[in-house]
């Protein structure tokens, strides 16, 4: 179990180094996407470059300020709901890091290996703590169409963690061995 403090974007070489059980603290740009956002990004023109960012399964609680947005609470949402999209999502956007909670299934596990990417778990429900690691709000897309939880929010995060590498780029998943006692 190693601990890494890393900057985004990640290279394939870096991604391959991470093993399940490793702890990560990441700095850089992330975008949020849950069910509706996955569907929208797979079917519509995407106005930003997802491949340089981490994909965050999150529907944040945001507060409108005079000319921007403030993050109030922003922990991860249950990742398994995105299982039906994630292999196609990885193929299209070449995202190197997925952040979520609760784990994902076999299709994602295979896709992580094929497209060299990892899935890392952040503590579910720790929304206030996560919001404190957001350095700034960058942009938001599809807010009117999808509403606050489902919109795609772009954040700059600093030392965001501890993330636990739960599925690596070598076909291993921490969830495979758990609950089988």
């Amino acid at each position: 179990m190693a601990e890494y403090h890393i900057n985004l974007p990640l290279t394939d070489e870096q991604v391959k180094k991470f093993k399940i059980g490793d702890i990560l603290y990441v700095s850089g740009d992330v975008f949020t996407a849950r069910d509706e956002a996955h569907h929208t990004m797979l079917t519509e023109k995407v106005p930003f470059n997802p491949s340089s960012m981490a994909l965050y399964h999150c529907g944040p609680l945001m507060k409108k300020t005079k000319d921007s947005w403030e993050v109030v609470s922003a922990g991860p949402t249950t990742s398994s709901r995105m299982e039906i999209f994630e292999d196609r999502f990885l193929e299209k956007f070449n995202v190197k890091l997925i952040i979520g909670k609760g784990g994902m299934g076999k299709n994602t596990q295979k896709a992580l290996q094929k497209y060299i990417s990892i899935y890392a778990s952040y503590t579910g429900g720790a929304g206030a703590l996560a919001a404190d690691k957001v350095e700034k709000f960058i942009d938001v897309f599809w807010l009117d169409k999808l509403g606050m939880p489902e919109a795609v929010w772009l954040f700059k995060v600093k030392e965001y963690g501890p993330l636990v590498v739960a599925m690596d780029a070598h076909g291993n998943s921490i969830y495979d061995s758990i609950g089988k006692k």
Partner: protein
Amino acid sequence: MLFVLLDVSIWGKIDIMSKYDVTDGIVNLIRKAETELPKDVVESLKKAYKLETGVAKTQIKAILDNIDLAKKSKRPMCQDTGIQTFFVEVGINFPEINNLKKVITDGVKKATKEIPIRPNTMNPLTGENHKDNTGNHVPYITWDFTEGSDVKIIAFPKGGGSENMSKLGMLKPGVGIEGVKDFVVEEMIKAGGQPCPPTVVGVGIGGGADLSLKLGKKALLRPVGVRNKDKDIAKIEEDLIKKINASGVGPMGLGGKTTVLDVHVEIAHRHPASLPVGIAVQCWADRRAKMVIHKDWSWEVE
């Protein structure tokens, strides 16, 4: 005559003022629930922290740090501020029962902007967000009636991740109580990290399909660590806690000793042909807050 009119107008004024205030009371109630966990839950998480090691310990530490931060900064501990759910016990001598639903609904709308809480109500057909946490049947209020003139309200904001792990089993009566236990244990292992363990699990045994689920949900209102008064049911609870925690699912499903903080069981008599088991799951953020409204609309939030 003059005296009587004066009297009426004063009461009228107080009435309007205090109903306005009680909307703020509902906002306070929701704020309390969203930003501060009940002591029983925090104590039980602290015990889990002592018990766990490695990755499991990092998860409980993040949870405890988050609880502290949310309380200090008066921010919702989780971005999923839930579906606004209330259990209301109305004293039948409360003079304005007809206004209670509006007061709660107005409070939810105000809380959405003021705290704030995430707009969480979507039209199931169009996906459109109602933007104020209200809508058809929401806030979801369960009404009970009792003696007296006080109204007791429990706010129980319910997150989606844990709600998605709810289960209904229409078991064959022949499987008996051991079959019931196996069903609960298997479902909680299957749920893995998805409901944000360590969870609190409510199990309703008996009744019909809807009643078993309702009993499961209501069982979640009982504080963590408090056993059912019936000794036989308490034993079933203890057995379920032991079995689910022995699975090793652990905090956030990443492995560990604490998968549930508690299991609460409630029962109802059943039809001879049916053995319904309703499972309601609450994430570690077992958010609950209480409020009392008196007959003059004065109120307290506990």
